[in-house]
């Protein structure tokens, strides 16, 4: 047994290495993210380059994922689209986790009416069906990457807030926290030094799964025409564009959906692996 805390980098890494599928997922994710963010270097064409000689062409050697209705290379657009989709996923998960940590720690530390009020707000946010609310809000805001991040992140903090709050409640009376406070530690210091490291497991798992969830939401909103607008490609708006010609040009529908599937699948496996690696109870052989 190591001396390191369950949330330490060394321990996470040790746990993950045992989890083959999670490790493979991490490799796939890093590869896809690298390819997408290096799109200008990797992509064979410009994302808005039009090839009038091959409109809606099925996959060939020059365009191995085919071309779309304007003769744009699908593989190129997949890379650029992935950049936007993954960016929205990462930032939205960051916003959601940050907001949840903030709300959860404020509720836990201040207790009494502050706690009560914040937890009732959380209940309300949980009760309103998320997707219709997201649809409505994104129909207001116009569809820039920034507003997608704010809207999706702003509606995905509730689970984190509950986890962080219960973590605060369980440790705030502990001797070492009382001692730290006696030595003049502020609430903020306590959150950063003690609460977040203790809640690292669920926070990291939640944030990881949050990335996949945000990518799915972005694609659903884009599918309804509410996501990031063309000509900026995202996997979601590529799917929306493809819907009308799905029967005759199926590759336009299959590839972007497959990309979402692979990324979200890899993120879920990684989340599972992290959960096993970070849960101290999972280190003992619970499975026979």
């Amino acid at each position, binding site marked *: 047994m190591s001396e390191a805390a369950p949330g330490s980098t060394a321990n996470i890494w040790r746990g993950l290495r045992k989890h083959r599928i999670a490790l493979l997922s991490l490799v796939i994710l890093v590869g896809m993210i690298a390819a997408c963010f290096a799109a200008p270097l990797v992509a064979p064409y410009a994302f808005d380059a039009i090839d009038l000689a091959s409109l809606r062409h099925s996959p060939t050697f020059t365009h191995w994922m085919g071309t779309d209705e304007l003769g744009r290379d699908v593989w190129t657009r997949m890379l650029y689209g992935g950049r936007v989709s993954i960016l929205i996923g990462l930032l939205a998960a960051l916003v959601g986790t940050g907001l949840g940590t903030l709300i959860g720690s404020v509720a836990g530390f201040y207790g009494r009416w502050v706690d009560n009020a914040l937890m009732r707000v959380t209940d309300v946010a949980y*009760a*309103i069906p998320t997707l219709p609310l997201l649809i409505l809000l994104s*129909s207001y805001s116009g569809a820039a990457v920034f507003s997608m991040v704010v809207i999706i992140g702003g509606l995905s903090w509730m689970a984190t807030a509950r986890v962080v709050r219960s973590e605060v409640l369980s440790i705030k009376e502990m001797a070492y926290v009382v001692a730290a406070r006696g030595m003049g530690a502020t609430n903020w210091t306590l959150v950063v030094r003690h609460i977040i490291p203790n809640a690292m497991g669920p926070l990291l798992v939640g944030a990881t799964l949050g990335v996949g969830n945000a990518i799915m939401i972005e694609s659903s909103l884009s599918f309804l025409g509410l996501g990031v607008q063309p000509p900026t490609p995202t996997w979601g708006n590529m799917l929306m564009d493809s819907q009308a010609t799905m029967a005759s040009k199926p590759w336009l529908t299959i590839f972007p959906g497959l990309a979402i599937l692979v990324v979200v*699948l890899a993120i*879920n496996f990684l989340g599972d692996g992290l959960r096993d690696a970070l849960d101290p109870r999972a280190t003992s052989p619970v499975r026979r």
Partner: protein
Amino acid sequence: MGTYVRRRILQTVPLIIGISLVVFGIIQAAPGGPEGSLLGTGRFVDPQVILSYRHRLGVDQPIPIQYVRWLGAAVSGDLGVSFATTRPVVNLIVERLPATLELMASSFVFAAIIAIALGIYSALRQYTTLDVVATGVSFLGIAMPVFWFGLILQLVFSVKLGLLPVAGTETVGATSLADHLKHLILPAFVLSFRNVAGWSRYLRSSLIGVSAADYLRTARAKGLTERRVIGVHAVGNALIPLVSIMALNVADLFSGAVITETVFAWPGIGRLFVQAMFARDYPVLMGILLMGSFTVIVFNLLADIMYGVLDPRIRYE
């Protein structure tokens, strides 16, 4: 139990008030105000006309008064009048409700049957081919965008194989029950897929969890058949938490229905919501959001109560 239920119901009152405030606030925040969509944009409108519009809609009143009026009317079952159709919102919702209920109910029943069968099989025959395949498909089901799955099924079963209709509820001129059911298959399947995945995995681990319980040893020791031990004692106990999860997921079905109904042109509440969003028909949007939240609260309450009814160990003080 009675007092517990009463207290739980009372607790939902502030929740409902909170939700109504949020829904009202969101509609107030609409660009151009809630009446903006009536006037249209980008053209000159006589200020006098705007004033009379605002007066007729009651939006010239202070916002707190508008809120109280709206809530009072909503409580008595009046959700206002649709901008786009000038018909009462309640009528529009009631008209679309049967289609949504049909879709949700059939997908729920389908998911429950398949998930329970698959969950039991997977738990009893761990790591067999079917168990491994079911696990794999579950992961796919959870990671797949609902609309994309719908599109792919349309592509395979409707376009390529020609077995099932692409969308809608009936073939024009060939209306029959069989025809209607054929239209139901794909959307109900798409809507149920995520729940089949989630529920069967849950039941599997829940069954494996109870498999070492003392009461199963007792049941075997007193000479019950293995069939009875598994079918009644093990499955019965493993199902208790699943029933609550199922009730909670009914609420998620509502979000799923928005996408599924749009993909399959299914004329239900979800599609009404998307259409109202494009038409900026705010009274309809408000009404559906309120109704959706109310459904979530009711099913959360049901999940809580059912847990207590099914598990006699749970006592409410």
